[in-house]
């Protein structure tokens, strides 16, 4: 009579035992490799130094800059308001708590963009969203924001605009004295307009 129950119980026990082997790894949750690869090949994670400078100047509260260089380099120089998480100490739970905060944009910064990009891939594997890479890194930051190169006279209007923004940003970040020759150019344009309106409207 009870034989059936015994067999059933045994099967249930075997199945229960089997579940022990289902989750062998106690690692953090991870994105499926195929989905990760699809995200990797999208270039949408890159932000320019100009965009980062603009966000810092505007005091964008959703911006979180994470510097992935080592501590010594970080102490030597870092972008304003940036946090140091060296690439090799990413898995430290304390460091992971900086990531995945809803509504924040995390931008990784390194000397160039390789280390920052590697950090991006690793955090993406852990499933964090809203992470970006500053293209060109600090070397590019120096060339574009700290010491912007003046475009040639026949450069497009957009290039001139970018340059005048960078010149302003340079002042913000270094307190460089406003080099009159460059700023004068912008001001001259404004003055010209005033003059023409004087002629038309009268005073």
């Amino acid at each position, binding site marked *: *009579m009870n*034989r*059936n129950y015994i*067999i*059933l119980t045994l*099967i249930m026990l075997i*199945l229960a035992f089997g579940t022990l082997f289902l989750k062998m*790894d106690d*690692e*953090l949750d*991870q994105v*499926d*490799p*195929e989905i*990760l*690869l*699809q995200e*990797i*090949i999208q270039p949408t994670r890159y932000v320019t130094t100009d965009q980062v400078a603009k966000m810092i100047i505007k005091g964008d509260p959703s911006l979180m800059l994470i510097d992935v260089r080592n501590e010594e*380099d970080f102490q*030597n*120089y870092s972008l*304003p308001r940036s946090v140091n998480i060296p*690439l*090799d100490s*990413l*898995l430290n739970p304390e460091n992971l708590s900086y990531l995945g905060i809803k509504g924040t944009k995390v931008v990784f910064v*390194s*000397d*160039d*963009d*390789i*280390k920052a*990009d*590697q950090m*991006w*891939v*690793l955090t993406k*594997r*852990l499933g964090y969203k809203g992470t970006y890479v500053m*293209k060109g890194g*600090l*070397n590019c930051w*120096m060339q574009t924001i*700290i*010491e912007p190169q003046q475009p040639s006279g026949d450069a497009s209007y957009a290039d001139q605009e970018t340059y005048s923004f960078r010149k*302003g940003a340079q*002042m*913000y*970040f*270094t*307190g*460089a*004295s*406003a080099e009159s020759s460059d700023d004068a150019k912008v001001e001259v344009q404004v003055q010209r307009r005033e003059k023409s309106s004087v002629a038309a409207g009268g*005073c």
Partner: protein
Amino acid sequence: MHIHELNPWRTLIALSAFVVLLIVGFLTMHKPLLTYEKSMSESVAALEDSDAYFYPWQLEDVIGNKAGNIVLFDIRDNFVFGQGHIPGAENMSANNLTREENIERLKALRDNGTTVVLYGEDELHANGPWMLFRQVGFSNVKLLLGGYRYYFEHKDDLAATKNDDSYKKGIARFNYAEMAAPEDGTGVKHVAKQPVQVERRQKSNVAAGGC
């Protein structure tokens, strides 16, 4: 007394059907194309592995067909690939990397001991795919430092790039602290007020001059 206890065979049939179903389920379980073979911490540590990189001067042997068992994969678009590529390279554009036939190809190359060198427009382009492939167990995949652009600039004298470090990454090219130091030694915030003062002067000029 339950009804099934009258016929023990019926229970046994139901039981074996159940077990067979489970076994079939396990056997036909979807096997993912890629699975991580390196844990997170192993993946972080693996980035320091210099064996995972391929140096531009090493290309000379590959192009001259002196190095056996090395395949170059160009992950740029087919169109750009057609305009110029490293001699002997095959095109496997980034958008097609997830295709099953390409993954199978990589598996076959790994199994017969062929080294795969990935390159994109620059080093950054191939960095992500290279990392992922290493993480899912393609330990034969290497990353070409400098990417295609560096190769193209130096293709006439690749051997000379042995002594060049302009393609190397993770190096500060400037003395940041010195370059970005505030000129009068004050803090950034203090100095940032200056442009505002300049504007104020302009306003007062307009008022004083009158119109």
